[in-house]
């Protein structure tokens, strides 16, 4: 079963965007556009974040992306969600 990433512990996210930088680095670029991970700050409450993972993230080195997150927001799951 193919592996992917799930943002299982979103409440832990503090918005550092290190995961986004790692994704983009693996795609040999710097920037926010086109990243397979998006980190959205709650517009009214600067303390909360939502993390969105594009299914295409399976194309990248998942282990490196998970390890870069010091808050352990991300985990490796089977593509069917298990």
């Amino acid at each position, binding site marked *: 079963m193919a592996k992917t990433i799930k943002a299982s512990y979103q409440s832990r996210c503090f918005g*550092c965007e290190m995961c986004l930088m790692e994704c983009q*680095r693996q795609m040999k*670029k*710097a920037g926010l556009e086109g990243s397979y991970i998006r980190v959205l*700050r709650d517009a009214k409450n600067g*303390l909360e974040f939502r993390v969105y993972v594009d299914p295409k993230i399976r194309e990248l080195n998942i282990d490196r992306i998970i390890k870069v997150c010091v808050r352990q927001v991300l985990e490796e799951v089977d593509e069917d969600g298990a």
Partner: protein
Amino acid sequence: MEPKRVLYINLSSKSSSIQYMPELVDYVGGVTMGVKLFALYKDVDPVVLSIGPLNGYFPFVSKTCFVAENEGVIEDLYIGGSLGFRLRFSGLDAIVLAGSSSEAVLLDILDGKVTFMDETADSSALGLPGKRSVLALSRGGLILDSYFEFPSGILEKKFIAKKLLGAVITGTKTFSIADIGKYTELFNQIMGEKDRIKVAPGSHPSCSGCPMGCTLSVNGEIGGNILVHSLVACGFAEDIYSNLGTVFACLSFLGYKYTHEQLETLADLFSRTLKEIA
């Protein structure tokens, strides 16, 4: 080296333009470039926002420099959040806020293109989610990303005087990296020095490009090491980014051809520029 790209916003005439300024290259970025821009535009009471060449690329280079005049003194202030990233990925090195608006205005800035919004605009509805930074007057203060505050009330006073309600800055540009192996090596080398950061890790909202989540990121900084704040790294990463070898390696990798002497004498250039304003 490429000229610095400066977004000049004239609040009085509600106009803007991006200026390409090769004469600013020697100033590297951040506070040294910010003070030079202040000197160039001092007649229009500028507030200058500036980043350095490493913002958006290397860890702990997570701040934006603000230069403004307060009661006859030129102040340099630093704030974290996501602003440095958004400026970098707008393709800008600095923004100059010149003059004052005749009525309250909110700026919506997308990749350097400015739309002047009136006071009925909702800043939370502007820009692109995930790619924007919101600077707004609220709760009696000037707040970035609903959390990060500026030290002292200097910029709040400036914004109020300029009738500037805030700015939403969105950046969608990307930059390719040719030697990804070397970049990753440098990036990881700096991350390996995380223990030299002079603040304890925590669980508070963190600045983009910094995995510390410290309690102090909310406060911002005033003044500090000129090289570090020309880059614009976090003051707590001073031990890393005051190391000329590290800085030179990062700049060289990104294609900047500064000499060691230029970096060593940056503080002198800053002082000379400050004297131009006096």
